């Protein structure tokens, strides 16, 4: 792999956004994902190669998170560095020479106002190469349905933080299913388990953002 591309990947993994960013301490003053991606594209590097290196970097940071070697703040910095890269890749996405893995529509279900967990999942999935539509919190089933109509090939993610809002989550799954029987739905949030997810008719359950990314990769492979 091109050395510059490898360095961009390292910047994403370490959460080094740009030269001005003081994080991480040991990379202070160095060029970050922003400057290096610009340089790489100027030098004619293949946009797809940059994207793949960065997605691999996001997988590595996710694995470190799973092993408790890094925590949410490092994951967020990595996602921000990834965003700096994808900003440069936008024209390639628009021309079709680089493609997103698919569209992921996510929201916290009606009656629930929690958004931090959902935001983390949203940022991390985006960083892993998906086009993400974040519908926010307290999202009624109709709003999910409207969004799905616009992106019928999408995958849907639902988040909830209390057992009492699981009722609303079940209702949302059922209403979506009634209109889009074959759509893939993944659910997550503190009170959920695989059994509860299955009972409500979701296709999958993810414990954390990394789990959501793994599940999305698996269904993409299977399709």
């Amino acid at each position, binding site marked *: 792999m091109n050395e510059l591309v490898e360095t961009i990947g390292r910047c994403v993994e370490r959460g080094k956004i740009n030269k001005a*960013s*003081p*994080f*991480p*301490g040991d990379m202070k003053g160095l060029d970050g994902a922003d400057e290096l991606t610009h340089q790489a594209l100027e030098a004619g590097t293949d946009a797809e190669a940059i994207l793949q290196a960065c997605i691999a970097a996001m997988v590595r940071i996710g694995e470190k998170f799973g092993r*408790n070697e890094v*925590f*949410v*703040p490092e994951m*967020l*910095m990595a*996602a*921000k560095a990834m965003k700096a890269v994808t900003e440069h890749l936008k024209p390639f996405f628009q021309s079709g020479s680089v493609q997103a893995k698919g569209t992921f529509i996510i929201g916290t279900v009606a*009656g*629930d*106002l*929690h*958004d*931090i967990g959902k*935001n*983390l999942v949203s*940022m991390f999935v985006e960083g892993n190469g998906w086009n993400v539509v974040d519908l926010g919190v307290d999202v009624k089933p109709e709003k999910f349905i409207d969004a799905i109509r616009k992106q019928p090939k999408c995958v849907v993610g639902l988040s909830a933080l*209390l*057992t*009492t*809002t699981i*009722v*609303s989550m079940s209702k949302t799954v059922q209403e979506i299913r009634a209109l889009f029987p074959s759509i893939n739905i993944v659910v997550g949030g*503190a*009170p959920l*388990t695989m059994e509860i997810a299955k009972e409500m008719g979701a296709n999958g359950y993810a414990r954390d953002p990394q789990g959501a990314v793994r599940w999305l990769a698996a269904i993409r492979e299977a399709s």
Partner: protein
Amino acid sequence: MERLLPQSEREEGVFEVTIDAADVTISKEVLYRALGYSDNRIDPHFKDIVDHVLAGIHDLCAVRAGYRVLDAHVKADRGEGLVVGRTFITTGCTIAGQLKNAEKAALFLCTIGPGMEAWSRRLFREGDPVRGHFVDTAASLAAEKAAAVLHDHIGLVMAGGGLKVTNRFSPGYCGWPVADQRRLFSFFPENFCGISLTESALMVPVKSVSGMIGIGAHAMRENYSCERCSRKECTASRAYKNSAPT
């Protein structure tokens, strides 16, 4: 530091306690730990953010807290809960067991208000999720601290009458269903302490805590019985088990 705080009676038997934002401040070390950095090995940039966030807590926390004390007893034939006033509350066996010596119960509510929540949300919206996450975590700790301060205050008030208090327990923990929030709220005037319940029993502002404390001559604050509970996903239990001596 336990001290008796000013309180006023809102309606018969319902007290609102004045807790200052300074009473719910948290140390850097506690916030580092909550963010995952238990050994204090944290990047200098994150340390700067922690300093900034902790400096903001004082201005943004508008703590409100209150309680109501009622007669209570665990019914021998209905071990899965206790009668508070005239209402049977299904707390589950774990909590009922811990409250078996209670003669009264203090039901409580507290919040740090919507300020921190709004700050965190704004930071996420403006593209600074790291700071937003730090603010959210600090706010959660401050809400828990508010509950702890209120608990200590109730303990001191009761000590004045020769009574002791138990641990505090909340709907959603130790087998007490979250749906019981509605019953708990029915003991208080509407919008007490500025806290309301949504249809799905979510408290607004989000950074709020509700619960119950047992009171009695032989009541005791003792270890939570987490070792007997099988809920792996409960963070309170995980924290307890990790800190328990082996």
